[in-house]
């Protein structure tokens, strides 16, 4: 895997973005899921009028508040990085991202200024109904806020609803509807939010297991686990369902990513899923080395995931690099030639326009429009550059799937123990519940690695490679801020863990 990591200075910008996004994603899943769990707990309180449910709600709300306070604004740094490290990209996508990010900002501001305040200050000061409404609004609003960010990310994976304007060098939005409801936007939003719900459910379960192990707040812990295991099970099943949808979408729009996820070098019918495998890290496109050192395959499963047909053909990395005429697959080699033509015609257009030769400009533009969808390939040096880091993508995908499957199983175990009222007896479940909380975080991070590393070398799929998207600034600056972020985020994380642990230690208020 190490051989696939380019540690040259110019990659610090990528590393910095990855670091910031990964730290940000430590806080976000808990916000997404805990907001809904608090709403569920409070709904039960309002329905039953039982003060114990109120105290339980207030306890989890407090932990939600800590996570929110520490995590808030960590995402803003990503926007700074766009303007400094990825200025070409920012310029080109400003018209597309402006609307979703502005909506996200407005939603977040109004939420935080109004409903958050009622949620935390409003106990006994507003009616039960209005307080509950505020808690639900925070949950819905936080998740809607995530929608706009994921719409923007989905557009980078599958640029749609836009047109490239060669006069401004910008992608301009032509259909807001197409951008928001693109298959990637829907798939990203549903997969990311439901995974956040599952992570949060394990957070509740892990803390409750701690109380059960200590024989403190036993009733509260059992009630919390009851709600979290139902919510978590539904969420984790949704994660699996939406993950399947994501693979299907990848198969049709990012087939290279899907091939890397499964280490599929040569396309085949009845394509298998590798249940377990060790990648041959030396394998390169076009060579004859074995792709795996060890592998256990399930035949036909990848074909089923990709095309809903276990006998169907799934292209491999080599097909996508060198093409496969028999299967009608255009390779990166051919796209690269078309891309170079696109770059050439764009340059001709620019020069002709500058010289005032509008006839030549019009002809160049006409030619450019015929090959513009390959523009990004024109910036690759060789077709093999279109291949993402296979090992990283493969292992990240398999970690995500294995942990995701484990999550479903463990939620079922907790639910069964809740129904049978054996939670106090089944002490062996407690460490599993705690372990799955940490593992679910790793699965979430691995999911983002699959999504982002798996689509390299593209900043915008097929249209803009990261090499062109980035700004040429001194690498030392990026390196310095990389470590500054590392320290800042680590301090924030330590603060969160410390404050959380203290509040967990104090525990919820008991009804006298």
């Amino acid at each position: 895997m190490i051989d696939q990591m380019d540690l040259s200075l110019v990659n610090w910008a990528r590393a910095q973005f990855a670091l910031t996004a990964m730290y940000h994603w430590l806080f976000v899943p808990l916000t997404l899921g805990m907001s809904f769990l608090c709403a569920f707990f409070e709904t039960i309180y309002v329905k039953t009028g039982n003060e114990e449910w109120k105290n339980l709600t207030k306890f989890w709300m407090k932990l939600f508040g800590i996570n929110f306070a520490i995590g808030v604004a960590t995402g803003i740094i990503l926007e700074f990085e766009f303007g400094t490290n990825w200025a070409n990209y920012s310029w080109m996508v400003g018209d597309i991202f402006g609307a979703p990010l502005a909506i996200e900002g407005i939603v977040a501001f109004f939420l935080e200024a109004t409903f958050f305040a009622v949620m935390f200050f409003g106990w006994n000061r507003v009616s039960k109904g209005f307080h509950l409404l505020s808690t639900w609004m925070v949950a819905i609003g936080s998740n809607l806020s995530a929608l706009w960010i994921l719409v923007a990310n989905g557009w980078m994976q599958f640029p749609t609803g836009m047109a490239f304007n060669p006069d401004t060098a910008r992608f301009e939005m032509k259909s807001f509807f197409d951008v928001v409801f693109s298959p990637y936007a829907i798939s990203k939003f549903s997969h990311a939010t439901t995974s956040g719900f599952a992570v949060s459910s394990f957070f509740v379960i892990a803390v409750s297991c701690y109380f059960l192990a200590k024989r403190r707040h036993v009733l509260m812990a059992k009630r919390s686990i009851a709600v979290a295991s139902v919510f978590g099970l539904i969420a984790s099943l949704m994660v699996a369902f939406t993950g399947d949808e994501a693979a299907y979408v990848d198969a049709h729009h990012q087939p290279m990513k899907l091939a890397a996820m499964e280490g599929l070098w040569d396309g085949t019918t009845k394509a298998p899923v590798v249940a377990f495998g060790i990648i041959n890290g030396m394998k390169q496109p076009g060579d004859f080395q074995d792709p795996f050192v060890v592998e256990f395959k399930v035949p036909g499963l990848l074909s089923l995931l990709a095309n809903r047909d276990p006998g169907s053909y799934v292209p491999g990395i080599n097909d996508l690099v060198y093409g496969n005429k028999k299967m009608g697959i255009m390779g990166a080699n051919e796209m690269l030639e078309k891309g170079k033509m696109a770059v050439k015609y764009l340059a001709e257009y620019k020069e002709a326009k500058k010289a005032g030769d509008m006839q030549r400009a019009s002809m160049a533009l006409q030619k450019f429009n015929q090959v513009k969808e390959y523009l990004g390939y024109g910036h690759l040096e060789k077709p093999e550059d279109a291949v993402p880091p296979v090992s990283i993508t493969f292992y990240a995908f398999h970690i995500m799937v294995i942990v995701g499957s484990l999550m479903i199983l463990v939620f079922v175990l907790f639910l069964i123990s809740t129904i049978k009222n054996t939670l106090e007896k089944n002490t062996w479940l407690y460490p599993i519940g705690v372990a799955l909380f940490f593992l679910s975080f790793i699965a979430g991070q691995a999911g983002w690695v699959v999504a982002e590393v798996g689509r390299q070398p593209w900043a915008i799929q097929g249209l803009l490679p990261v090499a062109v998207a980035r700004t040429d600034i001194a690498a030392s600056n990026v390196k310095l801020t990389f470590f500054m972020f590392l320290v800042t985020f680590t301090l924030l994380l330590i603060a969160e863990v410390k404050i959380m642990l203290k509040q967990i230690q104090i525990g919820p208020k008991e009804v006298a």
Partner: protein
Amino acid sequence: MGINSIKTLPKSALEFYIQGFRSMTLGRTLWKIIVIKLLIIFLVFKFFFFPDIFKKHFKTDEQRTEHVMKVLTLQAKSPSGHKKNSLSRGGHL
């Protein structure tokens, strides 16, 4: 809602926030963290380390377009097979 209630709404809302902030315990610590964090993010990171490169180096949108077009059409000047590292292309700003 009567006219009197509407008139007193801004005052009630303000009192709601003031009393809420005053009664905070853990919230005080969290707000301190938020304020320190925002100061670091905006006054240190943004101000010293994360300038908007295009705003800093170019005065007009035409200049920004010109720069991006230059980067986008660079490949045409150096045909396929050029040996320059693909991650270090484009002019330095």
